[in-house]
């Protein structure tokens, strides 16, 4: 059995950030990845400027090979059923359009950690002073003994399920799927990520250009029909925006845990096991999870280093340190922050004020109708309570975290 300081499950950006901090501090770290690397990853790849800066400062300038075409994204355009469109440029300039297959691999290699790919996490046993991690490599069982484990294994995290078996049942799940179309005619500006606040289309509807194709994606509550939902969006884009697309050449989809960031129900692990990235519930408002994955991953690594240095509980350190990332992420969903501050990396209030009074009213009405789509999840009261508490306690209550 291999004995190391830390096992990280997953080889994503969150894992790379955690590994970077741990390796820098001289901790022996192994990254376990289920697939052979480099591996495919379903993602828009539109990284926020904050995430770009993290990658740059920790792993160096991005090689061309880790970027899709177009290599960058200028901002986000919101579209509304009343046919008002609001383009918003990112603060600080354009941002990378990551090819996750290669960017994740590049980052994990740059972290300096030892990577064991084709090794599936099976389960773990926390024995107080160490954790036994069970995995399978090429069908054969393999075990590791580690002082700490970090779960950075995405929204359907096996690590989270191993320590909280009831977690999958405790939150609503969504499905996000995207299809890649040949472009016949597309008036949508390829320099922007396009998002539709349209309750008739889905809970999360987007489109953007990639490698000469147009991605049309839609997210909805699990259980609905992807093909039907997707076709509805394609027809809408054709009717309302003049987007003419060929038949889809490829498609993909995955489950998403969309709610934890909205209602401050993050999952950070227990004992010697930490959970980071989207496994922990981090997701920014426009669905970009990479920047908070990078930062929360780094914080999980820092927490382990600090806990060893100060001889303190790793959970205590992690929860106190992660509070800043919780603020950054949950602020993006906080209506008071959206109205009176600038929690996003693009200026929504300024874009709104650039519209005529009439269009502003239409936008606000359409947004309200869109928000009503989420009524069934009963998040409104929790979002309101968290928003009201935020100025008084300087953050979001830790007692709601698991």
């Amino acid at each position, binding site marked *: 059995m291999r004995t190391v300081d830390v096992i990280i499950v997953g080889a994503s950006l969150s894992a790379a950030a955690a590994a970077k901090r741990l390796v820098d501090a001289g901790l022996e770290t192994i990254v376990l990845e289920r697939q052979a690397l480099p591996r495919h990853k379903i993602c828009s790849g539109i990284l926020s400027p904050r995430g770009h800066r993290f990658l740059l400062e920790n792993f160096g*300038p991005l090689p061309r090979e880790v970027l899709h075409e177009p290599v960058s994204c200028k901002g986000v355009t919101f579209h509304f059923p009343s046919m008002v469109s609001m383009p918003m440029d990112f603060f600080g300039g354009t941002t990378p359009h990551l090819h996750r297959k290669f960017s994740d691999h590049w980052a994990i290699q740059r972290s300096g950690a030892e990577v064991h790919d084709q090794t599936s996490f099976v389960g773990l046993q926390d024995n107080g002073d160490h954790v036994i991690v069970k995995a399978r490599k090429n069908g054969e069982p393999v075990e590791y003994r580690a002082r700490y484990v970090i779960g950075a294994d995405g929204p359907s995290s096996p690590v989270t399920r191993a320590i909280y078996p009831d977690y999958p049942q405790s939150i609503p799940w969504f499905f996000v799927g995207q299809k890649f179309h040949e472009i016949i005619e597309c008036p949508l500006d390829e320099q922007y990520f396009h998002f539709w606040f349209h309750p008739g289309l889905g809970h999360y509807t987007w489109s953007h250009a990639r490698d000469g194709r147009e991605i049309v994606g839609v997210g909805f509550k699990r259980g609905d029909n992807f093909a039907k939902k997707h076709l509805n969006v394609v027809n809408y884009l054709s009717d309302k925006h003049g987007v003419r697309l060929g038949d889809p050449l490829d498609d993909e989809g995955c489950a998403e845990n969309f709610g934890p960031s909205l209602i401050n129900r993050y999952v950070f692990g227990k004992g010697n096991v930490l959970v980071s990235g989207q496994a922990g519930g981090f997701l920014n408002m426009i669905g970009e999870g990479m920047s908070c994955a990078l930062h929360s991953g*780094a914080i999980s690594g820092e927490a382990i280093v600090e806990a060893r240095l100060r001889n303190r509980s790793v959970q205590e350190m992690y929860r106190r340190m992660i509070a800043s990332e919780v603020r950054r992420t949950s602020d993006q969903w906080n209506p008071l922050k959206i109205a009176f501050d600038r929690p996003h990396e693009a200026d929504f209030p300024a874009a709104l004020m650039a519209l005529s009074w009439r269009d502003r009213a239409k936008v606000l009405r359409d947004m309200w109708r869109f928000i009503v789509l989420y009524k069934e999840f009963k998040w409104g009261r929790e979002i309101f309570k968290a928003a009201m508490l935020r100025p008084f306690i300087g953050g979001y209550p830790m007692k709601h975290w698991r």
Partner: protein
Amino acid sequence: MIHQESFLEFLHDMIPETSDRTSIEPGTVGPCHVGSDALIGIKRQQTNPTRWIGDSWQAFADVLRENGIELRESIAARGTFATDAGGTAYGMPHGVVIARSAAQVSALLKAAQQYRVPVTVRGGGLITEGESVAFGGVLLDMTGMSRVLHIDTDALTVRTEGGIFWHSLAEELRRANMDYLSAPLNMTSSVGGTLGVGGIDVNSPRLGCSADQALALQVVTPTGDIVECSDTLNAELFQRVILGYGQFGVITEATLKIRPYTPLRMHYFYYDSLRSAIEDLQMLDKNDASDYSGILTIMDCAVNLLVAFDSDEREAAFKANWQARLRGHGEFGFALCIAGRYALRPWKLGEAWFLFRRKRELFPELQRAEYMRDGKMVDRTVVFSRAVWKFWGGKQMVIPDLATSSEKFVEAVERGNKVCRKYFPHYTLYLVGIKLRPEHKAHYEMSCIPPDAEDWAYGCEFEPMIGGHVYSRDHLQSFKNAIYDIGVDLGGSYYRFGGMMKGYIRRVFGDEVVDRHLAMKRRADPAMILNRDVIF
């Protein structure tokens, strides 16, 4: 289109990654494929270095041992140096060498050049951004060279080894009834480290920074030559080593100016406005009205202008000519002002309670009986180094700062103060002037001294009171970046413990100056081994 096969080859070539094999030349900014308008204003540099893997480590270690150099490779020896006073950067050297002599340091650097092993030099370890944290390679602990070699009470100079802490130097000088001129506020910094960075004190408005007190140095160059230098001997090396961020050599010995010891008489004036206090401070400095001056604050609520004097004559002149022109209050008058202010703002009672607690804890510490005789402070070393750091510092030093010309200083402080308020409930500011020496202009190039400063530069440290709180590195770094960005905006510089930072140096000084210094660095340090990733 993505050329997958070629990228896999690219990744393969990149592994194992070593600093020697990085595609980006140290000191340069790599290509950005995202776009020229990405991350506007931020240079595309990796500021948290990749760990040096150490392919040539064993051969290097063997050579050191053959040369009789003790190399410590145990985890305990290396772990001691895992972080710095900032506590946000962590790294582990492959081995630690404790400096014993210039000859030993020379042999170490010669071997390091040959095997291209990074050498990170550490004095007091008081830097805050990981500048003396080794991300692999060898860590050279200078505290092994900590002797005072000679005190010349006639010429008023001291010759000391570079690794000595300032408080130890002060103690030795005191035995000869002598005193240092200008030392950094935290006296557990080393002399060598301070000369490479700056060092400010409450007498800097009159005497300049600590680095200005150096008359001559013994330096071991990155290629291992032992060179004596001064403004007249090997002047170019002297100019680069002073305020040079440790890029051009290791300071093994230094000759510093000293003076006869005198006790101080302190006066405190209290303000509720940063602007008024700064204007009064600058007025005093400009008119040479005091021997020591500076501002310490409790947030922006209680602003304390302190002035001090070496002699009764100077104190009398101050009282006769300048005291009446100061707009600050005495302790009692200020207490009344504060009471009035918070009576009208009852929702800020928490802040008032904090001020009261701070006053109750802090004031007695600045006037402890064992350091006072007849109303005079007999040991400023202890008072400033102990009391100030006990009450302002914490286990983790997060102290970004700004240095600007006199004209821009008020704006810099006011903008920095807003950043502090945004990030932390409690903080303190420390503001001090730095008298510039025209004859040292060559020392100041690409240093903490702002390029546009004339006669005086002014520095302000923004220090959150972290106490027992735990913050993520990202939170602390975001705070520091917000402060540093003000410096970029105003065309200022940074008077930090670690001096300039890699991520900011080109933004502050521009490519022409940085590239010129980089060319000098490459000539002096062909393998770019000495204090890698600090600025280049």
